[in-house]
């Protein structure tokens, strides 16, 4: 069919930030489905609590300190994360490098705290259904910590190479966006794992 040009887009940029970027929307999609996974795991936790007369089953409630430390570290990490995001949007490479390294270190610390948490929940996954669901919820969140740490490490390494330009800044911003989700999801899960057994 004959074509009739009506608009010229040659002046448009080749990448953007936030909701301009398709990858941001893709990340949001994964956030939605993973949030659904957390919600269902939380629902399963409350369901099992509902059908059992005692909760926790046959063990004391978990020590809350590792989880509380995790909460503090994650909430504190929001600040460097926001700075990484801002540096990316400003396309300020040295600051992006700095804050990605900081975020990588914080990610490693968070994974370490998670290991400490597993040691202090006072129950094994095969003890009873309570142990199973606690390990499940904690494990699901641990998977997110580990994958985001992996993303951050790769991206941090990338930003020290010759590829550190253009669209990569947008990737850094999207990575920061995902970390907000990892932190935000811990708040209700913390209440669930450490609060509900004490109710």
């Amino acid at each position, binding site marked *: *069919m*004959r*074509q*009739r*040009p*009506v*608009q*010229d*887009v*040659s*002046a*448009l*940029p*080749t*990448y*953007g930030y936030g*909701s*301009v*970027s*398709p990858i941001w*929307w*893709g990340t949001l*999609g*994964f956030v*939605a*489905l*993973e949030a*659904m*996974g957390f919600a*269902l*795991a939380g629902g*399963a936790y409350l*369901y*099992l609590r509902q*059908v*059992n007369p005692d909760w926790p*089953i046959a063990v004391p409630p978990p020590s809350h300190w590792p989880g509380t430390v995790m909460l503090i570290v994650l909430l504190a990490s929001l600040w460097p994360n926001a700075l990484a995001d801002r540096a990316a949007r400003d396309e300020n490479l040295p600051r992006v490098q700095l804050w990605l390294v900081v975020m990588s270190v914080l990610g490693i610390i968070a994974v370490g705290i998670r290991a400490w948490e597993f040691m202090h929940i006072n129950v094994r*996954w*095969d*003890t*009873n*259904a*309570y*142990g*199973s*669901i606690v*390990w*499940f919820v904690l494990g699901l969140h641990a998977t997110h910590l580990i994958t985001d740490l*992996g993303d951050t490490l*790769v991206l941090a390494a*990338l930003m020290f190479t010759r*590829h550190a*330009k*253009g*669209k*990569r800044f947008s990737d850094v911003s999207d990575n920061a966006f995902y970390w907000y989700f990892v932190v935000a999801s811990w708040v209700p899960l913390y209440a669930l794992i450490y609060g509900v057994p004490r109710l």
Partner: protein
Amino acid sequence: MSTQAAAQEDVRDTHLDDAELHARLTRTWRTGTSLIERLSSVDHKVVGRRYILTAFFFLCLGGLSAVAMRLQLARPEAKLLGPDLYNQLFTMHGTTMMFLFAVPVMEAFAVYFVPLMVGTRNIAFPRLNAFSYWIFLFGGLFLWVSFLLKVGPDVGWFAYVPLSGPEFSPGKRADVWAQMITFTEISALAVAIEIIVTVFKQRAPGMTLDRIPLFVWAMLVTSFLIIFAMPAVMVASTMLILDRLVGTHFFNPAEGGDSLLWQHLFWFFGHPEVYIIFIPATGMVSAIIAAFARRPVFGYLPLVLSLIAVGFLSFGLWVHHMFVTGLPQLGSAFFTASSMLIAVPNGLQIFCWVATLWDSRPVFKTPLLFVIGFFFIFIIGGMSGVMVASVPIDTQVHDTYFVVAHFHYVLIGGAVFPLLGAVYFWFPKITGRMLSERLGKWNFSLAFVGFNVAFFPMHILGLQGMPRRVYTYLPEMGWGSLNLLSSAGALVLFTSFVLLLVNVILSARRGPTAGENPWDAGTLEWATTSPPLPYNFSRIPFVTHREPLWDNRDSLPVITGLSVDTRETVSGTLTEAFPEIRENSPEPSIWPLLAAIAVAGTFLGSIFTPWAVVWGSIPVAITLTCWFWPKGTPEDEK
């Protein structure tokens, strides 16, 4: 390279003549011919075609297992299949049809057609798309190879605990089922996200929300259903496999677990699943009706709102699968009401389609015949659905052939008939050739008659008390003649699929050539060659109407200014589709395949030892990193 030189090399489509434009775009977008290049393809049409063919291959396997079961049930006390093989066959049939055929084939059509219908050059995240195909293929092969090795699952397609748990299903059969779920759900979720982002961001400029084709709306709503429903079955199947492999107690009542937890999680996915299969089919119906009624569909807005309403309501129905488990009466009453409520938006859609046809001069080609067949069969299925939504009736017919009849009327009538119509409708676009109308009419007639003869008697058998999932029955029960009739119908239905296969093979070689728009339809997939060139559109269309090709009979408004030497597409705002950036679509890569192999190996190993997850994560991490790491191509560096 200096900036100036780069700017000189960046050739735009603005002033190129047709031949030069075609040559350059082909060089940029084509899939190479060597084996590695084919395996690296990220073209949504190549991947979509693979998806469609693979899904139909699994349909064939699922269909053959159904034929085997019907032969066994044709007369009382038949000895063709033993109970163990029969258990595997009904599990393989249901699992294959739901997870390896129905959902993937709908997504496959979306992978192929959504980018064309919204006027872009590739799906969003094309490498993820390639990865999702490989994962789907490996998951399906894993299931069927297991079956051939006599470890095919035998616990039903919904794998109820405690039957599927460690106590009653030792061995690997239930593990195979649970891991097949992981494969297929990863692939379905990935495609869902690709479709949402393609529709949200990559629509051609001018395609505002109220100009999106109804099929695309249907796939958008379906994708949201997938995102919110499929995690439930992944959570459930992961818990099942943990119970089986590492001794957790999610479903073990002796240690505080609960078997109904499985049913809740499964049906929280399982009921939306029905609509994940049905909603795309309604999109196909809308596309076919508009083309053959020769007018835009009546009631665009109510149709879109119905799709969204059905999407929401589908999450409030799951407990009607559990009416006989002794739930509180208030809960049952709520789920009865919501189950009946969903008939309202579904009915509204049917009235809109009837109104469209009423006020038109329909052209009764094969695609439209399948749509007419859909009306007839789906309405019967919908009515028996309203019946089983009622707790007393459900209690009476639960686990009988009445339910088997009901859901085959809904699924085959509601999804397979529109799908077959869509095959006849879109085959010319995919292959460039028309399917034979004569064989098509035979195909439709045999499918329609065969289906009804096969499944209508099951209503009566169910009311007479014949239970599901029995490998045989005694002559005294008096079920013999209706079963024989049903089996005869199944053979006729099967023959109709053989005719389809013959038609496809013959027409792909010798059918009359189709041209760009053989049906004179109005949406954008018909604005390009058949089959479409690797770059879909030589210039991105500018959309001025819901049926752009009917609005612009002489010339198509287009946008210019895109680079022709890198894979540029336009990405725009969500509601107005106002162009924002010239987004570069990723070039081909072998890493999605290698990542899929690493992931498949990890899942396979995890059936035997949980350590496979730890060791498998290393190759998975390596392949994913290589996938994402920039290769210094122009697409990467812009």
